[in-house]
């Protein structure tokens, strides 16, 4: 059981990374990754919603009629998204403001619906949690990696601490949309290259 848990957890990190391999959940990755701080907040929010909804969906999978499963999944997911939205608004108002509309949009983040439909509704709770954690951490890794590059070159800072000398004038392109699109393209190409190298 423990080995299976790790197997499904690792699956989301690289081999089936939701962002770079399955190409889902891209919107928030690009929009939020201007600052590392926002990336960590978004990652935590997605991990929470993904894990809780996968657990609940897996627990109720035997009682849900097949015809109405999608609306039921949506209700479960939107409940947890509302929780995250309200908690962030109450305790972390600056972070909530920085991420803006992308917190409520977690509800239509394809990662969560896809994992609910493809995995959690068919597997026992423990494995569903393993898969959700793996996918969530894989998502957080990618978004944070992109965030580090964008904040470093865009502002010359990491987590708002200056890294480059004061004379460094940020690269505007990294903060603006074109830089984000280019970076995600480069990361996918890099992942393709490294996976090919590992498995000849």
């Amino acid at each position, binding site marked *: 059981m423990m080995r299976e848990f790790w197997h499904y957890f690792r699956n989301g990190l690289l081999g089936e990374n939701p962002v770079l391999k399955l*190409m*889902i959940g*891209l*919107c928030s990755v*690009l*929009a939020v990754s201007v600052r590392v701080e926002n990336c960590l907040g978004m990652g935590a929010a997605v991990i929470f919603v993904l894990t809780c909804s996968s657990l609940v969906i897996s627990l109720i999978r035997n009682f849900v009629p097949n015809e109405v499963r*999608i*609306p039921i999944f*949506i*209700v479960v997911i*939107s*409940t947890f*998204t*509302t929780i995250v*939205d*309200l908690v962030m608004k109450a305790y972390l108002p600056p972070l909530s403001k920085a991420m803006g*509309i992308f917190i*409520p*949009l977690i*509800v*239509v*983040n*394809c990662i969560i*619906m896809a994992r609910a439909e493809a995995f959690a509704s068919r597997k026992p709770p423990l494995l569903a949690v393993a898969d959700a954690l793996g996918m969530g951490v894989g998502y957080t890794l990618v978004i944070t990696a992109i965030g580090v590059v964008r904040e470093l070159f865009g502002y010359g800072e990491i987590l708002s601490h200056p890294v480059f000398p004061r004379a460094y004038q940020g690269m505007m392109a990294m903060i*603006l*949309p*074109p*830089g*984000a*699109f*280019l970076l*995600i*393209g*480069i990361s*996918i*190409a*890099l992942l*393709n*290259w490294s996976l*090919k190298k590992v498995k000849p």
Partner: protein
Amino acid sequence: MSTEILTLFKIIVSAAFVDNIILARYIGLCPYIGMSSSVANSIGMGMAVTFVMVLASIVTWVLWNFIFVPLGLEYLRIMVFILVIATLVQLVEILLKKNVPNLYRAMGIYLPLITTNCAILAVTFLGVDYGYTLLQVVVYSISVALGFTVALVLLAGIRERLRLARVPQFWQGYPIVFVATCLLAIAFLGFKGLVK
């Protein structure tokens, strides 16, 4: 009267071009990448998105201003809006299939994809957040959908050309699509500052 028309015009330009929902706000990327493999597909998808986006923003605007705000139920917004959109898409699909089979054939297969399209949900949220009037919401949603369709068709055109290009091995597929999107986004940056 003339200031009202000017406001509407500002909404159109900023929603369709300056704040293009895909290239400037990063919303709705999944259908953007998924449905842009041919120009014909992208036009069908654009039509379906326009249709649902306008309907959804009207319905959610009415619900929000006449039910939610008076009753103080704002915290239920996420759950209710997504359910409204899902129901609406189902209804539209059934009605079209029965009454307008031609239109259904043109955009029917795209409708189920739209339920979890973040662009639709985002537009309903934003329309409410900006405090628009009903007329402004309608204009806003049409222009956002127009911007979405323009970006989608442009990328589809580029991708049809890309099929003939020699792309380095690891850049084939999605990576080169993102590079093309990057260039499109640079082009759309030219609209920045057009509307204050």
